[in-house]
């Protein structure tokens, strides 16, 4: 039972809002020590896994491109473009993106959609569609960005096993064979289809609801602004007057 103490460290550490990075390291050491590993073995295990998983952090590649586009008005242009399309709502933008993401990942393309698509395109466009030029608060922005990121994850997760050589399917095959059962990739791929369709339908319903609730959030922002509780800063984000005095952050 004592080897579960690392999980306890994680849960308590995150609940007390300590820095997640330090909590993870602490949990790693607690787990390793409770299993009888030496400090050197624990550090070695951390180093080995850290290097092996570098593929997770390739986003640095795209940052210079995104940065330079943002410097030259990418977000502002997205606002102009969305302003011209009367039918554009955040929910409809997510709906199109979810479809694209599911289809491309089903074709075997696992790209970093969050960096390559959501930050430069999907998020600013959906924000512009919600705001329609009105100032909105950080908490409203957070709700839009949260759903934008979730759209990418949902499309990725519930589309990837439709690809015949997906890592997930290969792993299932490997595990089943270890346990003495032979399974075919061509059979397994079929049983991912119902979930993929369900994920799209459930998300579309969610996007419809989101389009309604996010307008309530914008209305609340407007009421707060009229009451003087919030004021727009230079980026047209609503902040409290104290925050504005501190530099609008």
């Amino acid at each position, binding site marked *: 039972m004592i*080897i579960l103490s*690392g*999980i306890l460290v994680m849960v308590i550490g*995150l609940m007390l809002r300590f820095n*997640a*990075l330090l909590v*993870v*390291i602490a949990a790693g050491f607690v*787990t*390793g020590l*409770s299993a009888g590993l030496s400090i050197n073995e624990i*550090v070695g*295990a951390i*180093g080995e*896994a*850290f*290097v092996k*998983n*570098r593929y*997770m952090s*390739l986003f*640095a*590649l*795209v*940052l*210079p*491109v*995104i940065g*330079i*586009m943002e*410097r*030259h*008005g990418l977000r502002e*242009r997205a606002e*102009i473009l969305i302003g011209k399309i009367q039918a554009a709502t955040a929910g409809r933008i997510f709906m199109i993106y979810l479809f694209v993401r599911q289809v491309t990942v089903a074709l*075997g393309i*696992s790209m970093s*959609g969050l*960096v390559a698509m959501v*930050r*430069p*395109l999907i998020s600013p466009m959906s924000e512009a569609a919600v705001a329609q030029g009105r100032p909105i608060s950080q908490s409203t*922005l*957070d*709700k839009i*960005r*949260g*759903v934008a*990121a*979730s759209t*990418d994850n*949902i499309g990725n997760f519930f589309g990837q096993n439709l690809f015949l050589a997906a890592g*997930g*399917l290969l792993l299932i095959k490997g595990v*089943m064979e270890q*346990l003495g*059962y032979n399974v075919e990739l061509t059979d397994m791929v079929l*049983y991912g289809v119902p979930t993929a369709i369900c994920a799209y339908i*459930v998300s579309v319903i*969610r996007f419809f609801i989101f389009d309604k609730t996010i307008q309530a959030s914008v209305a609340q922002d407007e009421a707060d602004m009229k009451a003087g509780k919030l004021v727009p800063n230079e980026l047209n984000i609503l902040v409290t007057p104290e925050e504005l005095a501190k530099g609008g952050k």
Partner: protein
Amino acid sequence: MLELLYKMQPLDFVYLLVGIILVIFSIQSFVDKDHNHRIGTGLFWLLYGISFIFGSYMSKEINGWLVIAMAAIVLFKQLGKGNYFESAIDFKKMEALRIGNVIFIPALLVGIITFIIGFFTKLGALVGLAIASIIALCVALYITKAKVGQSFHEGRRLLDAIGWTAILSQLLAALGYLFNLAGVGKLISSMVASIVPADNVFLIVVAYCIGMAFFTMIMGNAFAAFAMITSAIGVPMLVAGHGANPAVIGPIAMLAGYCGTLMTPMAANFNIVPVALLEMKDTYGVIKAQIPVAIVMLTLNILLMYYFL
């Protein structure tokens, strides 16, 4: 030296490229006099760059101590923000009018080129992303007439906004690895298996799917959960016990695991890094957006597995 180059896999070149970009960010931070923590921040990205460039050639202990050193920089709060020579909002609005919709081309190129390379060549999407970002950067520089150095300042602005979260995904993967070494998985799966009634098929399906989601939330990774929970519940109780088809329960259990991925901060690259990347205030904003969908999808996966059984 040349021999080493021949031995390098395509992915090693991608890591080399990421490492070089990180080292450039690091040098820019070191010389940034307006930076509030230029030494700490510069050192952090330098160490990370070293891990990318030389990681495969150093011992695992040295790699581990590099990570501990980076954590120490975070512990002493030595990561900060600098001066990135950002453009004013009026300049951005003017540029939006001057450049027009052409500004979207580099953004679309990243996705399209990654797709083409990933789909039509054997290099894979990760190598595709690297090539795509180089081409997109060149196109972006041509369109905007910006300077190369400035593009790295802008990249550094985004990276400093992400901060220590940048390495969190890899560190959580390391934690999952340690959990595995310590035998956490075996212990939990035997605990789950001991409370499930062996004769009720529906309850076994529920336990298998929820076990996958729950264990994925702890490990942060459905792949790690799958081997454990399938060998503890899926195969002995459903396949051997009730004649279920392994080609049916395997994929659906994996998808149930993905529902867990949507709900856990342990899957940082999907759920926590985007919070930093999109400059959100609420650390759990992405998870909160995903929980309703994840719970509905988990329920549907349970029903689908039971139906196809």
